[in-house]
């Protein structure tokens, strides 16, 4: 029973080149063979249903080869709420080849595609994208994206749940261009303080950034209703009945939650993505993309304005099968062709290889989506409490260079260090004042000083967690709301931040953030698919970074001056 190593047979000789290749980061990624029978396949499977549709008396009685009596609850929800019966017969008659051509043809308008898409069954949508290669999918995305101007979302989290860090990361992320800021927690009880910090930090400077805190559904809703956060995103839907039921949910319960948000004027979107069902062993023999299309249609049927998809936390599954990243790009595009806001993933650790990480985000950053990342880690990945993102704070300069190389707008820009330090410092002082005003555990000047210059939570002064958690509980007990934050900011002399926050809260009443793809622009006016509709119609049309924006994008950390090549452009 010795476990001392037995003498091993001599290893076969490898070339030095093999050794070099063997040690490349890409070989630490996992790749697997397809197995379509159980759903371990991206989008090309013989086991997916074929498109079919029969309507009787204005009601779908057969869909994708299944009689109404054999529908599961997803089929039923989709047939009754997601597919426009009036458009369906005509749309289905076009056939997938024709619909695919419409997506890439600049002569066919976005509106025309939308009219067709709303009449397609899940299998018809799948057959359509199966005919498209990655460039065609990107062309489709470029045209079908809801908002004309692309944008980006940041993750602002802290491995120590340090509210001061989160406030500063939010202010920096805002300055760098992110339109939405999302946080979550290691210790859930910290949530009220971190959500307050995010909200305050997001209003520093130009402000108007929309914030959210990913938590279990009830607390997330509570924080939203109090105005401590501005939108919600982590409401998950799944593509098979069994996975839905495992989570004690149905499409109807999710739709009900969506209505709760809408009733308070709070922006929200659902979340789904390829790979989750097969990951749980419940794919029912369907391809990943087919099941994701069902999720997209459930979102549409629930009347929600948008969807976060692009595999999200299951990216390791499509990322490991052939054609998987093509399917991920396709799922983003299908969300857009159904007129949903698309927050297109790129938000989870995806690969050990820097080349694959970049290639992963090309379809979204090149075509432009409503939120290219959902989100981009504004901290080093060790602080990212969403288990790491595809891109983090250390990739900022690379991202800006890519935008500049191709003249494509991923929503960000280079910002000089003094501006960043000033914004971080002001966010820290504002949060310090808010905490003092609300009687929360004090933030010292020394903490602020340290955090302004920090890279991540390892560089911070530790806080008294016990006192902070008591403070967090007090925030919930005392019923602190977004308006209390406005008051605190105002009375402490941070009137500009107070005004920005009040403007964000006012959107609740007008309901303008319920429009598809809504963000706030530099004047804190809503910018959405209503007043900034995508008008792409071929070369020379649609959104193209130009003018002031392009000048902004040309700036990098180091650009040699043409006037005096001994200097750099400031």
């Amino acid at each position, binding site marked *: *029973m*010795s476990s*001392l190593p037995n003498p091993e047979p001599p290893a076969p000789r490898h070339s030095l080149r093999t050794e070099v290749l063997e040690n490349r980061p890409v070989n630490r990624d996992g790749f697997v063979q397809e197995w379509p029978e159980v759903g371990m396949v991206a989008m090309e499977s013989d086991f997916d249903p074929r498109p079919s549709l029969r309507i009787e008396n204005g009601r779908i009685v057969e869909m994708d080869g299944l009689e109404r009596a054999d529908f599961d609850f997803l089929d039923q929800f989709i047939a009754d709420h997601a597919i426009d019966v009036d458009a369906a017969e005509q749309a289905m008659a076009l056939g997938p080849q024709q619909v695919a051509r419409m997506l890439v043809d600049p002569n066919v308008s976005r509106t025309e595609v939308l009219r067709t898409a709303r009449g397609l069954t899940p299998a018809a949508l799948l057959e359509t994208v199966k005919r498209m290669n990655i460039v065609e999918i990107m062309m489709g995305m470029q045209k079908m994206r809801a908002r004309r101007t692309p944008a980006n979302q940041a993750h602002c989290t802290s491995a120590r749940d340090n509210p001061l860090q989160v406030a500063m990361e939010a202010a920096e992320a805002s300055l760098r261009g992110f339109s939405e800021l999302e946080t979550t927690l290691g210790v859930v009880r910290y949530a009220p303080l971190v959500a307050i910090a995010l909200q305050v930090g997001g209003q520093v400077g130009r402000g108007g950034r929309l914030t959210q805190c990913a938590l279990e559904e009830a607390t997330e809703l509570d924080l939203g209703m109090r105005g401590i956060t501005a939108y919600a995103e982590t409401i998950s839907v799944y593509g098979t009945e069994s996975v839905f039921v495992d989570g004690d949910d149905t499409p109807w319960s999710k739709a009900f939650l969506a209505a709760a948000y809408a009733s308070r004027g709070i922006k929200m979107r659902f979340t789904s993505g390829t790979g989750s069902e097969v990951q749980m062993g419940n794919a029912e023999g369907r391809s990943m993309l087919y099941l994701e299309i069902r999720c997209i249609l459930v979102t549409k049927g629930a009347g929600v304005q948008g969807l976060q998809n692009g595999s999200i936390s299951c990216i390791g599954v499509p990322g490991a099968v052939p054609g998987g990243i093509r399917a991920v790009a396709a799922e983003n595009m299908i969300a857009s062709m159904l007129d949903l806001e698309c927050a297109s993933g790129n938000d989870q650790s995806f690969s050990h290889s820097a080349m694959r990480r970049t290639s992963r985000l090309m379809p979204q950053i090149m075509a432009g989506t409503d939120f290219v990342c959902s989100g981009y880690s504004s901290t080093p990945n060790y602080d990212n409490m969403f288990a790491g993102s595809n891109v983090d704070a250390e990739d900022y300069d690379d991202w800006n260079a890519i935008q500049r190389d191709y003249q494509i707008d991923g929503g960000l820009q280079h910002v000089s260090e003094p501006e960043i330090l000033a914004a971080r410092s002001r966010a820290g002082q504002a949060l310090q004042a808010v905490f003092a*005003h*609300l*009687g929360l555990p004090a933030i010292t000047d020394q903490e602020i000083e340290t955090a302004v210059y920090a890279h991540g939570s390892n560089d911070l002064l530790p806080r008294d967690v*016990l006192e902070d*958690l008591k403070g967090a509980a007090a925030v919930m007990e005392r019923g602190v709301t977004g308006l209390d934050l406005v008051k605190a900011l105002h009375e402490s002399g941070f009137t500009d931040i107070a005004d920005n926050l009040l403007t964000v809260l006012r959107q609740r009443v007008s309901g303008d953030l319920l429009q598809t793809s809504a963000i706030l622009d530099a004047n804190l006016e809503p910018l959405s698919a209503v007043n900034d509709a995508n008008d792409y119609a071929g070369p020379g049309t649609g959104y193209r970074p130009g003018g002031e924006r392009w000048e902004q994008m040309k700036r990098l950390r180091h650009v040699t001056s043409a006037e005096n090549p001994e200097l750099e452009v400031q």
Partner: protein
Amino acid sequence: MSLVVGVDIGNSTTEACAALITAEGVEFLGSGLVPTTGIKGTTANVDGVEAAVRAALRTSRLALPALQRVFVNEATPVISGLAMETITETLITESTMIGHDPRTPGGAGLGVGVTVAFGELDECSPGEKVIVVVPVGIDFAVVSKALNAALERGVDLRGAVLGNDDAVLVANRISCSIPIVDEVRLVSSVPLGMTAAVEVAAPGRTIRTLSNAYGLATVFELNADQTRAVSPVARALTGIRSAVVVRTPSGEVSDRHIPAGTLELGGETSTVRIDVGEGAEAIMAALARVTPMKDASGEAGTNVGGMLASVKENMADVSGVDLAEVRIGDLLAVDTFVPQEVRGGLAGEVALENAVALAAMVRTSHGPMQQVALAISQRLRREGAAEVEVVIGGVEAEMATRGALTTPGTDRPLVVLDLGGGSTDAALADRSGAISTVHVAGAGDLVTRLIASELGVERDVAEEIKQSPLAKAESFFHLRLEDGTVQFFEEPLPPEVFARVVVLSTDALVPIPVRHSVDRIRQVRRTAKQRVFVVNALRALKQIAPYRDLRQIGFVVLLGGSALDFEIPELIADALAPYGIVCGTGNVRGSEGPRNAVASGLVLSRS
């Protein structure tokens, strides 16, 4: 007839009561309690005051516009600080001894031999008496095989010391029974080629030979002088199930006293110096000689110097008072112990080192109450109480006794004991109604600190332990409570509490992440409360009692957050019973419990 609200801004809570004042007298309506916002006595209190006033009016079913007057107390912030310093340390030199308590040693009995490295076992001759020392990382199967081979060859294997947690596994696989001690992290530092003894006691028992100085003398054939030298080893090994002692040329276990420095206590007429190392009792005796104390400081460059300086700095920060102006008004020293890893130990041995905990208290000057009152009236007027007038009421202590006297069954002479977080405050109302007060350092926060250090837990866990009784979840359907009784449940308990000691807090069972038993935690909790609250109750009463005679006090009414504690009131009442004092938790106005005394007193004094 006018609608008034009395407001008491405390260190941690702001309390309010609403009342109608008529020609016939006072009719109390609702009351409110909210956390204080900001430091007591500053304008940051306004938010808390507004919330408390609103709460009091809401429970009275009245609205702000009807409010006519608000009475606030004259707030004298008492700020407190804590510090702790260990004053002894245990030191093992030359790796003389391994005295940790692995959960599962192997075999049983005593074995004496010469220490031999595992790799060198092959070189031992038949008949050699051997204690084998096995490094971390060698599989138990490999170890057993090698030991069996040595035994086969006739090596007289007497005991084993293992790095891995493998003692039972090895004992079960070898052909003779020897004592085996395992989980010795730094096993590679065990001196080799030295005479050593390994002892393992049967389950549920403790070692007998190595923990006895004469046992060691017998094993190692020591003379009287040598025995005297090793007696600390024996002491360090008492009460454990397994141990190893190695005889090295000059190795020893020493109990070192850490020089902690001198404490200087300044009274009105004299100044007393006392070495902190002499312990709490000596410090408190010295303090009694200089009471009332004017200030205290520690010898510069020593631990106690740093300790008091940091307390003062902290107080200066909190109160906004200039550091040079901070004067420590009272101290409470408590002897405690801190489990600390022994220096030079090989297996993470832990010794309970002596420590002294100090609570210090500063009375600051009156806060800017006029400004606070002004801010409150502005705020309340803006919020709709157009007519409101804010009046600064009387002295806090007087208001507290007035409120406390509304407790049914009380009369003068009466002492109010306010058991807070940082300090314990007493106010006496004598037969004539004259008021005197005293503040002593040390209260709930010190109790938390003592529990945390003695059990080696985080402060939030200690806070939970302090507040509620304990139990152990013996199955998913029953708890064994700390008094030995059993509570059954219909629904299974949550998995995170299974098999653990839990605190029965009001809304949940909170698991305590320590190895200690219920009895041990309970004992630590109760003695911490004794040493702080009972000691301070007696200290405060002795200072305030007429003629310093406790028998002159008729009634003691306990107020403040800690008066709601589940056992502190009874601990204090037990201690006061011999003096013929009636002592209990207050019940202000017969309805409010130990809350709302000052707020109620403010209203009563104005009627």
